């Protein structure tokens, strides 16, 4: 009944209406199109793989046909077989483990320091007043420039290499944590206070979980810097490590070995990125 009434009213309405421009032009209907469809990016998985393979094949051809001397650009197959021999002789492991232990010890120390200092200067006014200008003054110095000073202080051994990584990773971490603490939702702190938390409890139960995403962002930035600095430090003074491997290979014109070193660095970077993504999804389950 309701439907019938509204329909009869509809027809009487359109009967009395003057002609619209569309009707005059003789257009009866037009279908609405999604005008934002260009915003959706198509995925091209085969293009990604295909282009990668194609570049490798081209590279292989260029080297095989000796358009470029293999001494400057060895073929991918040659680099692979060189890598395989280095794996079998165990030479690779020595260098990778040496570099990794430097990276990890420096990285872990820097993360811990960065988190502690970041929370202190973010949450307490006196550490903030003392710490902020010191950080602002030392942050812009490229850390590799401090390496000679560190070698002078700590000697040529492990300590100076780890120290330069600590310095490099500390700054992005401390700045991320500090920003994170400053951006903690004040409402959550109010809620915690009203539920009986004191200051130290708030740091543990509100600040720390709030800044976890920022800590991970700092770790992702930091690991890239750690890779860069370990190679640089090993090129200055070392008897093992990926940086040492690359530099000595270049000195001896062993281009394949040099390339293996670069591939290891690429793989390490990819691995750490994957690792941090996994850790993040495990440790931050409340993020969709």
């Amino acid at each position, binding site marked *: 009944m309701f439907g019938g009434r509204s329909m009869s009213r509809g027809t009487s309405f359109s009967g009395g209406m003057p002609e619209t421009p569309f009707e005059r032009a003789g257009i009866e209907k037009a279908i609405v199109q999604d005008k934002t469809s260009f915003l959706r990016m198509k995925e091209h998985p085969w293009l990604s793989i295909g282009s990668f393979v194609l570049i490798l094949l081209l590279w292989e051809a260029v080297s095989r046909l000796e358009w470029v001397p293999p001494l400057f650009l060895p073929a991918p197959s040659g680099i692979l077989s060189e890598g395989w021999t280095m794996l079998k002789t165990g030479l690779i492991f020595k260098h990778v483990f040496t570099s990794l232990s430097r990276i990890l010890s420096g990285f872990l120390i820097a993360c811990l320091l960065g988190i502690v200092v970041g929370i202190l200067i973010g949450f307490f006014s006196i550490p903030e007043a003392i710490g902020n200008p010191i950080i602002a003054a030392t942050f812009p110095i490229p850390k590799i420039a401090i390496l000679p000073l560190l070698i002078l202080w700590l000697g040529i051994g492990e300590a100076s290499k780890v120290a330069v990584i600590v310095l490099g990773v500390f700054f992005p971490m401390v700045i991320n944590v500090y920003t994170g603490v400053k951006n903690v*939702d004040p*409402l*959550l702190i*109010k*809620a*915690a*206070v*009203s*539920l*009986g*938390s004191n200051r130290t*409890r708030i740091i543990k*139960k*509100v600040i720390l*979980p*709030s800044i*976890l995403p920022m800590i991970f962002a700092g770790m992702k930035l930091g690991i890239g810097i750690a890779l860069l600095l370990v190679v640089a430090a090993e090129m200055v003074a070392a008897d093992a490590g990926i940086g040492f491997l690359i530099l000595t290979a270049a000195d001896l014109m062993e281009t394949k070995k040099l390339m293996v070193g670069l591939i290891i660095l690429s793989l390490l970077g990819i691995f750490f990125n994957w690792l941090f993504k996994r850790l993040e999804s495990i440790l*931050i*389950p*409340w993020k*969709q």
Partner: protein
Amino acid sequence: MRVLIDHISKVYTDRHGEVTEALRDIHFDIGENEFVVVVGPSGCGKSTLLNIIAGLLSSTSGQVIFEGIRTDSMPHTAVVFQDFALFPWRTVLRNVVYGLEELGLKKADQLEIAKKYITMVGLQGFENKYPHQLSGGMKQRVSIARALANDPLLLLMDEPFSALDAQTRTLMQYELSRIWEETQKSFLYITHHIQEAVFLGDRVVVLSKRPGRILDIVQIDLPRPRGEHLIVEKRYLEYVDAIWGYIKNQARECLEEGP
């Protein structure tokens, strides 16, 4: 137990030395098991008042006094905020036990108390969900359970249903009325919604526009339990009308003055 809001005034001074008077001489009390609602036009300092009573802000003059309690500890209040203020990294259950952890209760006791209030607000089966998995109405239920679990002397609610859609809001008003009857605690409820104030309150404190002053305190003599049937009753509508009479002009002046 009685909470005395004793001549509270609040003046804000910003960085440029500009002075804003938020509250002027607010004086009323909240009795044992009483549901008091503060209603006023937006920007009248209602939330400022609540924060002062909750101990989250200092007043410029005047005090909040809890009478008839042991005085060896800070008076115990809990707050339900407009934007829920749930800890996103904690599940429903872990949000509700938050205050109990701070009180140092045993794990088993924490769980027992939390279960009781989760059931009271009707969230059984959602204990292990994270806040982002819940609707607005459910989030506010968690927040109410968390506040009640702490067994406060006074429960403070700061426009708790303003972030909800109109239908959910109405249902939550019925729920809250039932929960108050079940718990028999003192509630202080802040809102700009007059119907809500009359529906929920034993007394309604009507505030003016900024600086917030008390225009009147209206005793609401409507039977309990209150439910759907109430909102068509003549007495209810008369109370709503009377309070609207106070606020109408205040709100209009606000509108014309701008912020």
